[in-house]
């Protein structure tokens, strides 16, 4: 059997508004941008992407699920995405609930806040994973079994955690420097793990769609279903699983409808399933499909980003490190405040998009367009972030003082 393992990632961060240092101490709302057209207006952006990508692509997925019993798909949906969808596009959640009922849609586990907590605070990390599992169960009635970490970041430690936690499998980048002569088309066993399995992204075939589909300078442009399917079939000579992992927004937002991306996708599903040797698998089915081919070790963190495939876009300069140290350094005080609002704001500030907006690594190449950001510059991103943390600090001090005062009152009462 030749199998496509299609996995799509759905995420929206809460972008910080242009939060001035003079707002510190009196404006505790970091997320509501009043200017509708600002790049940091979360509502406008969510609604825009919902129209361009979430709704049309979900409709196509639903259609494929209804028309082809062999079609399956896996989705990862972050907690911050779910909340914003509930506010601004509740029908998107309803569609997701509907397609989950087919039993052929698997939801992938991850951190609720799309955070880098694993690299800073394992306990916080696990709480976010559990919180995510809870909301997925609550909304969609399914248990998550396969884990993906933010930005597909992965290393041996993460695999050990997943093994201990009872995850059936993990998703990671099938990066040549790690795989060397090996193929990403097999199930692997992460180094030192008993039960958990590892699936690796076939980045060439995934990126043919996600990055190159609309590139008119690409020598294979325009990409037809026939051509792409012949590549898929050729690739299966190296192993049975074609792991196509990509952002959900590839369809409609990153690559616009007028390129023919939706039609391409629909036709690909039809054309692939026409051959009875072909099928689709969800990620957990893929984990169970075969015994692991070999053990694989990734001592260093590998991600699905950039040519470096590392965390340098998130933790590449000292601003990013300082920002992350500062936010995770607040943990104790945030927990002691016993204030749900504090906890929520603190966790939203952990979303990996924040340090990403502070990335400066392409400045030297002059390749500034490689990064999307709602801010004018990475320095602006840092300024607003640190201003928000300053306000958090003041709120924490205030709460601590109030607590002290009440505990004194209690003492004097006694």
């Amino acid at each position, binding site marked *: 059997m030749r199998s496509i393992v299609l996995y799509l990632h759905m995420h929206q961060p809460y972008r910080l508004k242009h939060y001035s240092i*003079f707002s510190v101490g009196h404006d505790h709302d970091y997320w509501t941008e009043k200017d509708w057209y600002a790049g940091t207006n979360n509502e406008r952006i969510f609604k825009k992407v919902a129209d361009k990508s979430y709704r049309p692509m979900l409709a196509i997925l639903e259609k494929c699920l209804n028309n082809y019993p062999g079609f399956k798909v896996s989705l990862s949906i972050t907690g911050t995405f779910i909340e914003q969808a509930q506010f601004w596009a509740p029908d998107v959640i309803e569609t997701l609930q509907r397609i989950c009922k087919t039993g052929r849609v698997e939801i992938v586990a991850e951190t609720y806040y799309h955070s880098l907590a694993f690299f800073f605070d394992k306990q916080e990390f696990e709480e976010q994973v559990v919180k995510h599992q809870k909301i997925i169960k609550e909304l969609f009635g399914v248990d998550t079994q396969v884990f993906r970490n933010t930005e597909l970041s992965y290393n041996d430690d993460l695999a050990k955690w997943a093994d201990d936690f009872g995850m059936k499998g993990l998703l990671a980048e099938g990066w040549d420097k790690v795989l060397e002569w090996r193929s990403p088309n097999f199930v692997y066993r992460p180094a030192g793990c008993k039960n958990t399995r590892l699936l690796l992204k076939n980045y060439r075939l995934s990126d043919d769609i996600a990055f190159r589909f609309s590139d008119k300078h690409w020598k294979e442009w325009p990409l037809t279903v026939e051509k792409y399917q012949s590549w898929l079939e050729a690739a299966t000579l190296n192993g049975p699983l074609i792991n196509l992992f990509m952002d959900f927004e590839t369809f409609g937002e990153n690559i616009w409808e007028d390129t023919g991306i939706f039609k391409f996708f629909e036709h690909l599903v039809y054309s692939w399933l026409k051959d009875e040797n072909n099928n689709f698998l969800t990620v957990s089915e893929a984990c169970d499909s075969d015994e692991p081919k070999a053990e694989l070790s990734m001592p260093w963190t590998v991600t699905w980003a950039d040519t470096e495939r590392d965390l340098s876009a998130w933790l590449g300069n*000292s*601003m990013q*490190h300082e920002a992350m140290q500062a936010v995770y350094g607040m943990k104790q005080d945030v927990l002691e405040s016993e204030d749900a609002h504090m906890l929520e704001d603190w966790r939203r500030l952990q979303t990996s998009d924040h340090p990403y907006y502070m990335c*400066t690594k392409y*400045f030297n190449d002059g390749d500034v367009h490689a990064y999307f950001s709602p801010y004018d*510059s990475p320095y602006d991103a840092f300024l607003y972030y640190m201003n928000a943390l300053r306000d958090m600090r003041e709120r924490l001090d205030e709460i601590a003082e109030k607590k002290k005062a009440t505990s004194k009152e209690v003492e004097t009462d006694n």
Partner: protein
Amino acid sequence: MKILMLGWELPPHNSGGLGVACLHLSESLAKYGADIDFVVPYEAEHHLKGVNVLSALHIDPLFRYGGSAYESKLIEEKRFKNVKTKELMSIRDVQHTYCEFVERYLMEFKPDLVHAHDWLTYEAGILAKKNFGVPLVAHVHATEFDRGGANGGNPLIHEIEYQGLITADKILAVSQATKNIIVEKYGIPADKIDVVYNGFEAPQDLYKYDSSSYQYLESLKKKGYTVVSTVGRFTLQKGLFHFMRAAARAIKLHPKMIFLFAGDGEQKEDLMRMSADLGISRNVIFTGFIRGKQLRDIYSISDVFVMSSVSEPFGLTALEAAHHGNALVITKQSGVGEVLRSIVQYDFWDEDKLAGALVNIAESPALINTLRDGIKREYGRISWDDVAKKCISVYDEVNKHKRNRF
């Protein structure tokens, strides 16, 4: 290729970036084989590599601007009773004599092209083109709209600037911002204007910062103070009132800050009064007009350099400050921001953002270090040789058109 370069100043007889730009551009052009005669309106010794410097007038460099940009001879006559009125020149007189010199020059020599720098020399450039048929390239380092603020400026200068721009075969603007002004305010077609950013030449000398120059500041720095500086003429163009108010807001949040205002100009007294009114005069230092080593010591002691201009065609001082290790905070209205990425930018009126940036920079080693390291990698890439190459391609283009015409 023989180029007649028309300028108004060269270092050390310069009052700002214009002279510096003219010097480096001419020397780099000479390196690429251009034969340059550079005309200045005063008499002084200049030693430029491969460039002939010609004096149009026998006056001291100090008097090249005459009384002022206005025809103020009459006032000067009344002010200085015992001055010989014949010797008193307004800037218009200086310009007329400059034109006469250029005319005499062109009767003898046949340059391939005239390259005129700013309105001061445009009349001479127009003369060269109209009377002698020499193609004219007008280089715009600043417009009267920059110098005079949005609606102001001297109408006579506007007229000369306009005539020069409309007559020129090609216009070079030092930034996209400047090009936009030329298009929007003077109605010149955009395709006649090329943006040629200024270069930057890191001084290759034995300058060494001497920490004893500003002992008071050094001792404050040891106590944890952050030194923020700005350098330039204290005029409307520089947006210094906004800067001063932002300084006051920043000091409120982070008292350990010292602001250095290096330069001089008509707003100096207002600025001093303002710092007192805002209650921050203890944190503000006025150095007066400084140059050379003193100026470089200021750059060296400073941690953050602010360019607060309302409208700045380029802004060479920012690159000088970066060279001496400053983090840069620059208005979006400054042209130099178009070629730099490792900077914090703000709108000139956005005092909150400037103040916030200064406080964050003062309090975050990570931010100041990222800015400093980033800018160090950037400014070195902006070379005068690249500017010269671009100029030569413009010269060739202009000359090709000229041949086609005949």
